[in-house]
């Protein structure tokens, strides 16, 4: 009971700005996809277009191959007929209805029998652990409980596709970490195709099967979380995920799959995502956790000047200067000495234009 989603060449212009620019996306049945990106990247707009609450200007959206929106064929199925579920960022629980009534609403619209509705509502409330709270009003629940009700309401009508708009952003940090795992479990257990919008990368990677990174209304990279993390296809993606170190370097030569660059006098081997212009300037990206102290003279090391150290509790965070750039790395120990030798494994040195 889950569907596929095809988005083809979707375009949307709002107030003179191009929010979605010929976007293409394909989601498989039962897959969980995160829409990630900076503000203005169009992720929320995309979600709302899928839901039918907003109308694109061009392209096609199809569920299970059947278009719900098709600019050329003038198809635009209204939101109430698309049979989707949408969890709002604000939860959008109706304050004048009880929890049970909130959850039952969609079933009532589908004109299901009273007894059937009652049964389904009770069941789904049990599933999310709020079985005893059916008679309460949203205003009487905690944020976490409201979020779960919102989810239950979206689930109960057995939609073909589940959409979630920043589902965890209103929860406090601790709760959020628990909720991440719980949400993925719940989604996987239901087997539904789900698409959610988030600006939190950890959330995106923790919950989803694939991450779609949007930039300027286009898809920057669309791949499983590990791939996006380890093999970003552009500097933008590499930079967007986490908070990596970025250095200026000079491309020297290519070596099969790898590329040689010069950094602060040292020659390093890394993996290049694009064919670099030899002799030209490139950007070398090293994630904090991949940068470590090395022994002078070993392979893939380069000198750096220690400038600062900060105690974070679990680790020390050290700042080093390489040429004009400042890099960060962690180590369990305090450091002394001014000149350090840094090491980065070959496959962790990402080189982009």
């Amino acid at each position, binding site marked *: 009971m889950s569907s596929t989603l*095809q988005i083809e060449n979707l375009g949307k212009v709002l107030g003179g700005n191009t929010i979605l620019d010929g976007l293409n996306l394909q989601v498989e049945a039962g897959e969980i996809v995160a829409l990630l990106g900076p503000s203005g990247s169009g992720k929320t707009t995309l979600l709302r277009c899928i839901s039918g*609450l907003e109308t694109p200007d061009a392209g096609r959206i199809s569920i299970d191959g059947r278009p719900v929106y098709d600019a050329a064929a003038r198809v635009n199925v209204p939101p109430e007929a698309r049979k989707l579920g949408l969890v709002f960022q*604000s939860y*959008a629980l109706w304050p004048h209805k009880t929890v049970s009534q909130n959850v039952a*609403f969609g079933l009532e619209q589908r004109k299901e029998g009273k007894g059937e509705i009652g049964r389904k509502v009770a069941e789904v409330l049990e599933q999310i652990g709020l079985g005893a709270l059916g008679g309460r009003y949203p205003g009487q629940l905690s944020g976490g409980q409201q979020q779960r009700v919102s989810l239950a309401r979206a689930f109960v009508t057995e939609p*073909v596709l589940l959409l979630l708009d920043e589902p965890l952003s209103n929860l406090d940090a601790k709760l959020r970490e628990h909720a991440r795992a719980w949400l993925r479990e719940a989604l996987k257990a239901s087997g539904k195709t789900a698409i959610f919008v988030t600006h939190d990368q950890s959330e995106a990677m923790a919950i989803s099967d694939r991450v779609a990174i949007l930039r300027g209304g286009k898809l920057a990279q669309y791949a499983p979380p590990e791939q996006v993390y380890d093999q970003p296809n552009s500097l933008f993606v590499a930079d967007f995920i986490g908070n990596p170190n970025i250095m200026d370097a000079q491309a020297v030569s290519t070596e099969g799959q790898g590329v040689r660059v010069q950094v602060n006098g040292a020659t390093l081997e890394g993996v290049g995502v694009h064919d670099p212009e030899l002799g030209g300037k490139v950007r070398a990206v090293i994630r904090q956790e991949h940068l470590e102290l090395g022994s002078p003279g070993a392979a893939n090391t380069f000198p750096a000047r220690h400038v600062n150290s900060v105690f974070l509790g679990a680790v020390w965070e050290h700042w080093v200067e390489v040429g004009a750039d400042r890099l960060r790395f962690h180590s369990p120990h305090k450091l002394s000495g001014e000149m350090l030798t840094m090491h980065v494994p070959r496959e962790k040195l990402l080189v982009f234009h």
Partner: protein
Amino acid sequence: MTTPPISQKLPAQAVRPARGPLPWGWWLLLAAVAVAVLSPLLLLLWQSFLSNPFFAPAKQVGVSAYSQVLTDPAFWRAFGNSAVLAGAMIFIAVPLGAILAFLVTKTDLPFAKVFEVLLLTPIFVSPIVLGVGFIVSLGPSGFVSGLFTQLFHLASTPWSVYTLPAIALIAGLTHVPYVFLYVSTTMKNLDASLEEAARLSGAGVWKVMTSVTLPLVRPALVYSAMLMLLLGFEIFGLPLVLGDAKGVDVITTYLYRLTAVTGVPAYGPMAVVAMILILLALLIVFMQRALTRNKGSYASLGAKGYRAQRLKLGSWRWPLAIITILYLLYAVIIPMAGVLLRSLVRSWGPGVDLLGALTTANYAAILSSPDLSRSVVNTLVVALVGGGVAVAVYLLVALGIQRAPKGASRTLDYLAGLPRAVPGLIMGLALFWLFIFVPALKPVRPTLISIALAYMVVWLPYGVRLLTAALGQVSKDLEEAARIGGATATGAFLKATLPVLKPGLIAAWLLIFMQFVREYSSAVYLLSPGTEVLGAQIVQLWGTGAVDSIAALSSLQIVIIVAVYSLATRFGVRPE
């Protein structure tokens, strides 16, 4: 890509756009509003170019009426005075109303509930009566004046209630309730944590009000200011009672001058004055739209429920309470005492032994009048039922402005802003003409329906703005969630937004009820035996000088309104 299985769940291709309900519905609404608003105005426009009544067999078309009015120094004097009044109303009523709204709704000011009712009292009272109240209390023969001059051994009071500044001040103070209502309704639905956050950052209560609360209720402030501007030119009762003594004319009392030249009611020049005010109203709507363009999201009524934490005033608590009491004393209590006194005495002024002059004869006179019970019933019917229908209509218009396609929305906004611009006397005449010349409306004329319709049209700007404010508070999410849940656009509005809107609707209905009870000039030509209403009777009584009857009648009016108001607040008008 694998060929996806065909789902049976999706409906056949539908071409309905996902945006709003039946877009042609909005155009229909627009047409209805346009007809209702523009008919009297276009008639007046036509009349402004005619030398004789438009229904006279012989008439000339020309601009003589325009030149007569525009070259009349008395007109410009009156216009200037009206502008001064409007300015005073904006600069007195808006700040005072906003600050009082803040103090009463958001802080722990003592006696807040009592203050709220007292603050609103001027709206319960006919403006003519308010004027009388000020004369009886603070006028040259007033009892407060008498106490003052005795106390300080003066020959006469240093103030006069008949000068332009005095009238402007009184106008400003007596319109504070309008602003208070608009602003406090909006403020009550703001999340208190927004102000708490500012407080915790070190801001004092004043800073919180000016940098957090007031900016968040900006639309209400803008609407209030624009309403004050409009009402300033339309104001009639107060200048009628207070303006003659020193010859202070405003636009509405200037209208009486127009008959001087010909001796016969001069419809052409009257219509010209109406046209000039319409232009002004268009300008006001334009300004209002410009000032509220960057709306942002003021929506705060949503799933999070209501928070009712009140800001602590600390050491300012009692001083502010005293200041509020002083304000109420001057703006409300003293004039109300004046009205009450006048209703209970035969005669008043220096040399009159007030205690000796006490009498219930005035009340006896009006209570024994056979018309009175009918008048009260009529007034209640028009105000309650007509008011209810009006709220529904105003809600539709407010929805139209919020959701209709851009062109329709903008036109509705302008249309909705026009009716109150035209002085009640002229508007009443125009509406009367429509009711007797348009065949479809003729049978309606002798009934209460014509009065209710007239009131509905005239108070359109007020009501629509009230409901726009209420609508703006409800988060769009609620309705969207309902649509995702499977409700149609209309269904989603009815099931998700309307229930949450209910307190705002009841509050709006209450306010419109009060306006309808007080209203007089618009329906003056539509009255007949059997359809008298209180407001118009008061004007008629004023003409014969039965001020004591007016005072008694007004006290009755106040009792009715306070009763309805208390009942309504008991039944949850204000969400707490």
